[in-house]
């Protein structure tokens, strides 16, 4: 499976009369976001008299975004525009995985384990990673972070796994 976006343009699932798929889909998604925001703020109080309620401004902006998204989609429909660029899966997947792993394990496992493991997970995001080199750099970086953040900068941060400390 290849993840380079430079492959031949992906076959569009959109009908032919959509002339600028990139803008069309972009506009539709913006409209969806706006509708979601309208739904999410529907329980908030609106205008009472001439003063704003908590829900007034969010709904105002949501309606505005709905209109703008519609306009962007319409432009995409009527004007020739670029196709949707191909997404690669490898970079986003492993970088996200590294971030989520970091968030989940920083409290229980501490900075040292977390930083190193996240580094290695993130490194999977590129095909060009050389493992020996990456391990060495990862170890050095972890050491640097372990010294810099808690000691030099005085930020409170767990260092080692909880079960080891106890």
């Amino acid at each position, binding site marked *: 499976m290849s993840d380079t976006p430079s492959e031949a343009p992906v076959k569009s699932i959109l009908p032919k009369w959509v002339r600028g798929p990139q803008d069309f889909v972009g506009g539709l998604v913006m409209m969806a976001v706006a509708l979601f925001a309208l739904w999410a703020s529907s329980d908030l109080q609106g205008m009472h008299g001439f003063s704003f309620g908590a829900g007034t*401004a969010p709904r105002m902006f949501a309606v505005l975004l709905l209109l703008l998204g519609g306009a962007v989609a319409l*432009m995409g429909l009527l004007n020739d525009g670029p196709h949707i660029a191909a997404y690669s899966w490898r970079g986003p997947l492993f970088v996200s995985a590294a*971030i989520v792993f970091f968030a989940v394990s*920083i409290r229980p496992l501490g900075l040292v384990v977390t930083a190193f493991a996240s580094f290695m997970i993130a490194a999977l995001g590129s095909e060009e990673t050389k493992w020996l080199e990456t391990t060495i750099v990862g170890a050095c970086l972890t050491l640097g*972070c372990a010294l810099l953040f808690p000691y030099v900068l005085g*930020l409170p941060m767990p260092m080692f796994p909880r079960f080891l400390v106890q």
Partner: protein
Amino acid sequence: MELFANLAHGFAVALSPINLLMCLIGALVGTLVGVLPGIGTIATVAMLLPITFGLPPVGALIMLAGIYYGAQYGGSTTSILVNIPGEATSVVTALDGHQMARQGRAGPALAIAAIGSFFAGCVATVLIAVLGAPLTKLALAFGPAEYFSLMVLGLIFAVVLAKGSVLKAIAMIVFGLLLSMVGSDIETGASRMAFNIPELADGLGFATVAMGVFGFAEIIRNLDAGAEMSRDLVQQKITGLMPTRKDLTDSAPAIVRGTILGSILGILPGGGAVIASFAAYTLEKKIAKDPSRFGRGAIEGVASPESANNAAAQTSFIPLLTLGIPPNAVMALMVGAMTIHGIVPGPQVMVKQPDLVWGMIASMWIGNLMLIIINLPLVGIWVRLLRVPYRLMFPSIVIFCAIGIYSVNNAPVDVVLAGAFGLIGYWLIKHDFEPAPLLLGMVLGPLMEENLRRALLISRGDWSVFLSRPLSAVLLAIAAGLLVLAVLPTLRAKRDEVFVESEG
């Protein structure tokens, strides 16, 4: 006379050993970041915010300011030597700067960039000092209606000057405004769109979103292109830093023009260093006797944009310090830094925190001097840094960003949110939506809502208040005029031309 007294006071503050050290560290870190491609100023300032938590407020802000203008310097170095702009502000510098380097004139190009930046920095420092007090007085005449109109103008500016579709840029701003609504309502305390997630009760952190759409999204996007970027390094040794007399006479007027243009664009909300450098380059090309020299190593093409971006980087502090309105995303992060130290930016800061304001202004001049002294000898080291392959750099940036976000609130959820915004940012890039207006909208959202509410409350629900108050009406008229200009086909064509050239 008050001006000199104020400046003297500022220098007294800025020259204390600890503040000098902060200034030096900030300038060095900024240059380092500016040199490294793939990590922008916004992500860096966001990443380094936690570092300044433990410092006294003055030192913290001096350091953050140093990072900001240091990055402008560093970006130019890589533009010239490697043809990789480290910062968006140096994209145009690469056009002629790198050509000069190929002709063996890297030394003069670097020197002119540094001299231009220093000159612009000096002028901008004086400008901040001179304009600070009168603008603060003007700010006192501003009611909620004027504030709201000014912010509308700023957002429109950002739209007009953003790259690509005007419609999409406005959509991004509104998306940002909508995101800023998440969290507690300031007046009623009602929880809005937070879905009972306790971490969202305070709203989406600005640093979190910034790190997501500018830090993580940028990394993911770079990985698309393959981690190994081609690096067209100028291998020959850099000899003869000194520009010739002809270089100096050629570039002196360009530096002055760039400085003026940059200073003006920096003050306007929504403007900023990126636009300033593009505009300055276009101006030079327009007024040059022989425009064909541009792109082939014209020294004016280096001098003017470099002066402009530095001037704009500094004058963008003016609206922040006087009106309390952050004109761009980096300034919004500075607001965050100030808030953490219990300082509310706005007209009162000048009076209540003279140490902070004047100390920071004076430190900018000192910082610029430091940069010119340290940067030229350090060029070799910066270039060597570029040899660090991206495959090692990107996981490191991921980790630094993650630690940075985590330490802002000690909240793991923030890290996940930033990751989510990274994916959103990646999607936005794929659909050609600019993330910068989104961030500006997010910054100005709460301020706009508050002032809109207040204005309407004072006018008893009468919307015409925005047009009946003269100052507000003028601001809105300018905004409307700009928007009309932006959609007019002739200007659009020209505007696109500028951006196309710069990307070539």
